[in-house]
């Protein structure tokens, strides 16, 4: 029996009068890769942001239902939101590097997790940049501004920064959308590696990527969860008509 890391229970989210997430119920198992798929605009990003309460920043948002992290409701009043977000490790869909150097971007993550020692900083940063397959490209320009990197490089930088925080979960919103096949494969392998110690949720539009890395699939459409099952069942034997269409649609 696998442990449940996150449980979403009867979760609804409205923005203004729009019903964005409709009665979501799902489980994210611990130390597995869960892939969320669905057509653009179906609410994948919103679901991820609800999990680390970034949706608190939205205007006119109304939420009902519960989300549990380690069996603790994250919408409870006594929850430490910064601590929650630190554990959650969300990489946003569009990479946003911080307005500082490449080095300091990763250092920022390290400092948040309390690892401030100057001596080991350089080594740690090298370690995290290697993990995301970026080290060789940036090792000679660590002190240049992060915004001088290409989008794909920034995407990997943000991942490195997120890992440096040392979260319990990794919520990656289309982490390879701007990457070439080689870098994507490197990130995928990284995730396969990391799932031994982290719980990973990945949003992706690439069906093949989902096939390669997913243990579980959550398939969404128009703010609802249509199907959730383990990856093998989903791809070989989708239960719902919409999932069948989605799979064949992309493969065709």
């Amino acid at each position, binding site marked *: 029996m696998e442990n449940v890391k996150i449980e979403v229970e009867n979760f609804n989210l409205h923005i203004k009068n729009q019903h964005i997430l409709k009665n979501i119920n799902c489980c994210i198992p611990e130390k597995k890769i869960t892939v969320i798929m669905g057509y653009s605009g179906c609410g994948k990003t919103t679901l991820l942001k609800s999990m680390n309460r970034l949706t608190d920043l939205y205007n006119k948002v109304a939420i009902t239902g519960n989300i549990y992290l380690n069996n603790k409701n994250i919408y409870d009043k006594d929850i430490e939101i910064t601590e929650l977000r630190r554990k959650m490790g969300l990489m946003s869909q569009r990479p946003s590097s*911080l307005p*500082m150097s490449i080095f300091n971007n990763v250092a920022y993550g390290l400092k948040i997790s309390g690892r401030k020692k100057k001596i080991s900083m350089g080594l740690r940063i090298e370690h995290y940049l290697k993990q995301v397959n970026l080290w060789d490209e940036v090792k000679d320009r660590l002190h240049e*501004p992060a*915004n001088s990197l290409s989008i794909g490089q920034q995407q990997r930088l943000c991942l490195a920064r997120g890992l440096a925080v040392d979260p319990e979960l990794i919520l990656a919103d289309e982490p390879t959308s701007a990457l070439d096949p080689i870098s994507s494969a490197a990130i995928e392998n990284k995730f396969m590696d990391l799932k031994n110690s982290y719980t990973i949720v990945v949003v992706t539009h690439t069906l093949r990527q989902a096939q390669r890395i997913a243990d579980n699939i959550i398939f969404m459409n128009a703010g609802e969860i249509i199907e959730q099952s383990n990856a093998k069942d989903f791809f070989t034997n989708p239960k719902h008509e919409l999932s069948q269409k989605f799979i064949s649609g992309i493969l065709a």
Partner: protein
Amino acid sequence: MVDISWGIPSIVYGTFAFSIMLYFGLRMSLLLGIITVAALIIPIMIRSMDEVFKTVPNELMEAGLSLGSTFSDVAFKIYLKQCIPGVITAIMLAFGRAIGDAAAVLFTTGFTDNIPTSLHQPAATLPLSIFFQLSSPIEAVQNRAYASAVVLMIIIIIVSVLGRYISKRMNHNKI
């Protein structure tokens, strides 16, 4: 409100402050001039800094928070880095307006030929010196007006070059 106060001519600030001073029976002094000019430039600063902070993409806040920073950490360690060039420009804009302004200080700071020794004495601002000295019949005094003008220009040039330099230095990390 802020926008309206930006549009008000500085002479209106000056006379308004002057009428308040009359009401309380205060005499012209350096301190009152400082207060009036501050009232004049605060709206400029607020408006232009507000514009600067508005240009920061939302994602920067989201990125900072999702790393587990507190709100104030994001504000001071991330937003400020992003905004410092703009903030410097805003300060320079306000400084330029303040140092060159004659009307607001005409009734509040007054004018004197002596160097003030306390905040409660009247003082001569550079624009007012230029104005009064130039209207003097004595040529030596008139020449002093030109000297004041040169000093004023030099100060403005130095400040703006320095501001530009600093904001350029800080700008390269901006996203």
